[in-house]
């Protein structure tokens, strides 16, 4: 079943997070005015991204200067001979028409740039076809890319308060690390400015206080923290209001188990 929506309402970075954490496999089809994009994921990692229909096939490798037309024809013949489970880039590596590193470098660069451009789309319909896979002769990246740093880079390109405020409505919120960010941190490369913020996160300071301590603007701090948030490294919470005893159970009546059991039995019997 397809997941459909608009990136105006459910942002691309949010969708990448869903694909990553949900270990999704499938094809994400995006359209915006006359533009299109097609991204394929395998167990939450990106294996291909193109912005033009003609780039979905092996000819892209010729255009990128990785192999010649003759070599492509040769690889396609091998591909047909090998049958259903083979893919073009694996055949190219196996037959030594190009090195794996060379393929990885060229295709990863192409793919990343294809995705980064999408973060500039203000809106666009998306459709995620679960378990859809690229064609056998598609320019698949030999080693799939983790989407974490794509999210971070995409968020770096966000320059509007609106989207940030959806997740960070006020600079009076505190930032804290998620309980187990360890593995995720490894996949993310931070810019020096981002490290400055990262190092200040202590679960106590508000965003405004972090801005004050680092000398960065509120907007920059929120934008950077929005990136951490989107990548699933941190969470933001409202700062408890001083003087208000709003600890756990505040505003929530302490009820007797016997009372809850009576309601449960009644609902069960309905």
């Amino acid at each position, binding site marked *: *079943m*397809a*997941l*459909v*929506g*608009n990136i*105006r*309402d*459910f942002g691309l970075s*949010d969708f990448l*997070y*869903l694909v990553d*954490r*949900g270990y999704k496999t499938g094809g994400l089809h995006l359209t915006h005015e006359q533009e299109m994009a097609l991204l394929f994921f395998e167990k939450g990692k990106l294996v291909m991204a193109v912005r033009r229909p003609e780039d979905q096939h092996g000819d892209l490798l010729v255009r990128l200067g990785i192999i010649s037309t003759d070599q492509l024809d040769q690889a396609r013949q091998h591909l047909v001979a090998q049958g259903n489970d083979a893919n073009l880039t694996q055949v190219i590596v196996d037959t030594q028409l190009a090195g794996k590193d060379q393929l990885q470098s060229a295709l990863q660069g192409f793919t990343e740039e294809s995705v980064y451009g999408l973060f500039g789309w203000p809106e666009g319909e998306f459709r995620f076809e679960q378990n859809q896979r690229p064609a056998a002769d598609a320019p698949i990246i030999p080693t799939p890319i983790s989407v974490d740093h794509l999210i971070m880079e995409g968020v770096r390109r966000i320059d509007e308060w609106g989207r940030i405020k*959806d997740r960070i409505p006020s600079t009076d919120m505190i930032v804290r690390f998620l309980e187990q960010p360890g593995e995720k941190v490894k996949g993310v490369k931070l810019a020096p400015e981002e490290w400055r913020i990262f190092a200040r996160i202590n679960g106590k300071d508000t965003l405004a206080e972090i801005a004050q301590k680092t000398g960065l603007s509120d907007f920059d701090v929120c934008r950077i923290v929005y990136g951490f948030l989107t990548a699933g490294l941190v969470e933001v*919470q*409202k700062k*408890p*209001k001083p003087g208000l005893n*709003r*600890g*756990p*159970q*505040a*505003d*929530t*009546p*302490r*009820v*007797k*188990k016997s*009372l*809850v*059991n*009576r*309601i*449960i039995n*009644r*609902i*069960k019997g*309905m």
Partner: protein
Amino acid sequence: MQTVKMVISGAVNAGKTEFIKAISEIEVVSTERRATDDTKMIKKETTVAMDFGRIAIADDLVLHLFGTPGQKRFDFMWEILSEGMLGLVILVDSTRPETFRETNRIIDFFVGYRDTAYVIAANKQDRPNAWSPDELRLALRQPPHIKVLPCVASDRESVKNILLDLLYVIQERSED
């Protein structure tokens, strides 16, 4: 007579009125007026005050169900409704990702300052293109311990199951 209260919240057209109607023993008291803002694009009549349903538990105990108004301009009602509530059901229209941000805003409002017992009901699971509960959990960034449950608000059994799941959460927190 003791009364206890549960709140049913969610974005416009998430299915709150339908949810309460499916389980209430009384005709649901609902102030429906013709929508005057963008909600009329979604449904002709939308809730502008609140829905109220009732289930008699015993002669001495009644459960009240309150549905919150969906539109932002009625936020002030949420505070009033949430006072003393036993638990909260957040309904999500699983077919409309454009409402997920608003759903997060509602969750944040109700649980931001309070340790509220709540479950998320992924409504309209009978429709094509409904996002699954697992996908909604990720989309709404809910932690693993929060229940995100499949729901069809027009189906009484489905609504019963949601309320029971919420009650089990409340039961775990209750005192002997």
